[in-house]
């Protein structure tokens, strides 16, 4: 009986609680704090949540409406991802799928359910084509942008200098890892360098001796890594073991996680990764998080200084800016998913705006449009100096002229295989 009363009480509290906070911006996050990729997921999700909690504490939300940044745990499983998507889609303003597999599943449904997908720095590179993918956004840079920037850095800005060289693409054997291959192969053909794709199966992420034996035998001039979760640490320890020169080993932004490098410490010095975000403990926004979220943050001070936490903050800042734009455009403080889509398609992060938001030194300027859903902010090389990641280059930007035809081709292919697929004819072409 006692239990029953308690249950009834809890129910009553829940009902009144819901009534009070009826006005909110519901932006669920399909998080993964459990499962094989939890180590990389937790700092990102902490950064995202802390930024939104800071806005709630400091400004009372966005435009006076509190943000409900609820998490739905997927453990990186696509099955759980669909469950979360179905559970949240009635009220959700946005889907943050956090996995290429879940993105691929949700992407075709966007035209029907009309909820924008926000996949910052991941997902399907051709999503950049806003005319085809009306509801999907992957700001500030796509995987193909990342690959193009890496190639420019290793070639010193002139890809023809790579002629005759050999570049290994060490990747997770998964849609995510295969994503940049078409671009890399096209570039190789055009500029005369050899591409050596080396897949790592999900079950062999932690034991890559076979792959590194191949690398030792083939002696590639550069190894480019598209790794995630346990694969990064596995690759970096193997690279140290086989004494592969660290300054010829470069990762994508998801392979630039401090914890993976701490395992090898000094031995990993010289490893680089491309990144569209930088950690900056002195940025005003980090101070605001310390002040307004403080102990309620799930992250400790060390984690807050890391690359992934900072990236989580930037991701939430992008979403918040999209909501603000939507509020400004409609004049309402409560927005609908389609308002938010328009908001995300008119992001304009100028340097002034970045400073105004307190994100100085954490991200590069970019702007999205109806036709361009990525923005292509460019990025920096970050280098592991033995104890932390430091900025290693000036802002690099992708060679868009080389990428755009490929993007248009793949987007058209996707639309054709999913016919009938509505196009946004109102946008002018890219």
């Amino acid at each position, binding site marked *: 009986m006692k239990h029953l009363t308690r249950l009834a009480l809890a129910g009553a509290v829940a009902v009144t609680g819901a009534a009070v906070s009826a006005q909110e911006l519901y932006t669920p996050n399909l998080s993964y704090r459990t499962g094989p990729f939890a180590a990389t997921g937790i700092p990102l999700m902490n950064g995202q949540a802390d930024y939104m909690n800071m806005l709630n504490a400091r400004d009372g939300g966005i435009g006076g409406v509190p943000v409900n940044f609820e998490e739905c745990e997927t453990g990186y499983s696509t099955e759980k991802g669909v469950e979360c998507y*179905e559970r949240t889609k009635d009220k959700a303003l946005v889907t943050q799928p956090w996995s290429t597999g879940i993105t*691929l599943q949700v992407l075709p449904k966007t035209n029907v359910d009309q909820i924008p997908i926000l996949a910052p720095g991941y997902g399907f590179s051709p999503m950049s084509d806003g005319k085809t993918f009306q509801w999907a956004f992957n700001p500030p840079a796509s995987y193909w942008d990342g690959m193009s920037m890496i190639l420019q850095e290793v070639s010193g800005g002139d890809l023809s200098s790579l002629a005759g060289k050999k570049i290994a693409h060490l990747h997770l054997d998964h849609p995510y890892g295969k994503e940049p291959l078409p671009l890399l192969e096209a570039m190789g053909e055009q500029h005369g360098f050899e591409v050596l794709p080396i897949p790592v199966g999900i079950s062999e992420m932690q034991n890559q001796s076979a792959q590194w034996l191949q690398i030792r035998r083939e002696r590639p001039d550069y190894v480019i890594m598209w790794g995630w979760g346990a694969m990064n640490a596995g690759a970096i320890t193997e690279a140290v073991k086989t004494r592969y020169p660290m300054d010829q080993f470069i990762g994508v932004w998801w392979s630039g996680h401090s914890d993976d490098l701490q395992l090898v410490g000094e031995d990993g010095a010289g490893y680089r990764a491309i990144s569209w975000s930088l950690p900056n403990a002195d940025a005003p926004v980090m101070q605001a998080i310390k002040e307004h979220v403080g102990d309620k943050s799930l992250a400790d001070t060390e984690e807050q200084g890391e690359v992934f936490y900072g990236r989580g903050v930037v991701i939430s800042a992008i979403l918040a800016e999209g909501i603000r734009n939507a509020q400004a455009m409609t004049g309402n403080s409560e927005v609908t998913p389609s308002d938010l889509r328009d908001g995300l398609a008119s992001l304009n992060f100028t340097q002034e705006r970045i400073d105004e938001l307190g994100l100085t030194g954490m991200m590069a300027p970019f702007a999205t449009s109806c036709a361009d859903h990525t923005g292509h902010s460019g990025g920096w090389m970050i280098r592991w100096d033995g104890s932390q990641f430091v900025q290693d280059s000036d802002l690099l930007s992708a060679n868009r002229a080389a990428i755009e035809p490929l993007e248009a081709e793949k987007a058209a292919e996707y639309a054709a295989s999913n016919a009938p697929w509505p196009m946004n004819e109102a946008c002018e072409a890219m």
Partner: protein
Amino acid sequence: MLYRTAGQYKTTYRSDQALFPIRQDALLLGIILVLGWVVLPLTASEFVFQTLLIPVLIYALAATGLNLLTGYAGQLSLGTGAFMGVGAYACYKLVTIFPEMNLLISVLLSGVFSAGVGVMFGLPSLRIKGFYLAIATLAAQFFLVWLFEKWPWLYNYNASGAIQVPNVDMFGVWVAGPQATSTSQYYFVLIVVTVLTIVAINLTRGNMGRQWKAVRDMDIAAELIGINLLKTKLLAFAVSSYIIGVAGALFVFMWRGAAEPNLFDIELSFRVLFIAIIGGLGSILGNWLGAVLIVALPVILNTVPDWIGVDIKSATVEHINVMIIGALIVFFLIVEPHGLARLWQLIREKLIHWPFPY
């Protein structure tokens, strides 16, 4: 009381051997069928369709397929996930090569491909038994998933290596792909699953099922009484893989909408095997009970904290969920090692004698 059998006399052998000799059983099934065919589709929300109804139907079908092989014919298999994959990829190829073909036909045809592959990997079962056979089917599991990754023709040279379900219509109604409504998908699955379940029940009650059981209980004795082991075992592999293949096609086309090769990994095989074992090997009903426990219960448990208004972090709920489901599996297997179907059978017998047990 509820299950009073007094007065239900059988006057012919035919009626004595009916599927449901006790009237109450038939009534119960009737209620469940009405619920499944009429009440639930009218009342269910999108969430219920996509996370409870459709997956339970599909997993129950896959477990039925496995149960025919493992529970009835006694051949242990760990390759279920890969055979589901064969069905899914076959269906994908059929739909993209012959877009004008009726989807129902493609789904039913895709089972033929997995039946062929199943027979191929079933050949060793003539020489090896038990755990050794399990290892042979494990080879199928790893080989096929590897093939799904390495053979780009299977996924139409898609850059991401995944298959995406296109929009498919039947008689002017979208039944697969993003345009399809959950209700039409549910009915499509329900029709296929109902038909195949009836086939499975009748197979196990007929001559073929009896031969399977004889082989399971003692294959030398079965051979001595004139059962052809080669034919019987391979037929079990063929029928089982056919049903599993159809379940795989439904799994991707009617539910997931997209699939990458590692979806069909060993975890899926184990999941289906657990459903069959916890539900009860050698029982058709067990597959349904098992699917409800393994597939639907976690989803329902996930909504409980929200429903009673307790504020717990989503990750914590996930951890608690895993613990509860694990504890329940252990509990049920201690209470009744022969699975949920046997548990239901015991309850039913008790009910028949209640309130005057002797």
